[in-house]
């Protein structure tokens, strides 16, 4: 079974400052890792994903994440945030070896609030 821990439930940050949202996962098998964003009253949108290859993954809206296998982490970063980045961010994991469906297991989310 897989699980995800997002250590920070809320992260306030000033506009144009850098931000890092932390994610650690636990799994007995190899995994794929994801970050999703949920804007207020909307569904989930995929920010980026790690499937294989380079451990530094670039996503949409200037976000990037780095897969660290030894630390079982997949932290999300952005060098300069905008007001429009205010949203809930979810880290998720799925096993590489599922067939038929890729059930995602989510963390509890981090609320990013960008302060003008």
């Amino acid at each position, binding site marked *: 079974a897989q699980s995800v821990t997002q250590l920070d439930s809320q992260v306030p940050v000033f506009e144009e400052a850098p931000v890092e949202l932390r994610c650690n996962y636990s799994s007995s098998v190899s995994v794929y890792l994801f970050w999703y964003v949920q804007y207020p009253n*909307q569904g989930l949108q995929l920010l980026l994903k790690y499937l294989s290859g380079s451990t530094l993954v670039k996503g949409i809206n200037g976000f990037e994440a780095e897969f660290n296998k030894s630390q079982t982490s997949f932290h999300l970063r952005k060098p300069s945030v905008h007001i429009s980045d205010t949203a809930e961010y979810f880290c998720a994991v799925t096993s590489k070896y599922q067939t038929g*469906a890729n059930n995602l297991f*989510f963390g509890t989310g981090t609320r990013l609030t960008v302060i003008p």
Partner: protein
Amino acid sequence: DTAVSQTPKYLVTQMGNDKSIKCEQNLGHDTMYWYKQDSKKFLKIMFSYNNKELIINETVPNRFSPKSPDKAHLNLHINSLELGDSAVYFCASSQVPIAAVLYNEQFFGPGTRLTVL
């Protein structure tokens, strides 16, 4: 065109009622999912369907019954609604992974906010 759509967007109902949430995807995907997001924003998989067949039921009470009339639709029917069923329910779809190391992105619907009074 909306890729994954859900109706209704909001649903307010009394305890004990039976209600359904509909989901449709126009992406030609083979696999569909239902997730529940509780009041603390925690998202959890409920069901996944592959070509109209149930693949997984993650310890969901049998009051919840997914119904897939065709591979483009996965509806969620809930009997005898309870207060604890209040949540946002998300439908998603993806192409079925056909090899052990293949992942296909899931596309999520906008969610249905269910409030049980």
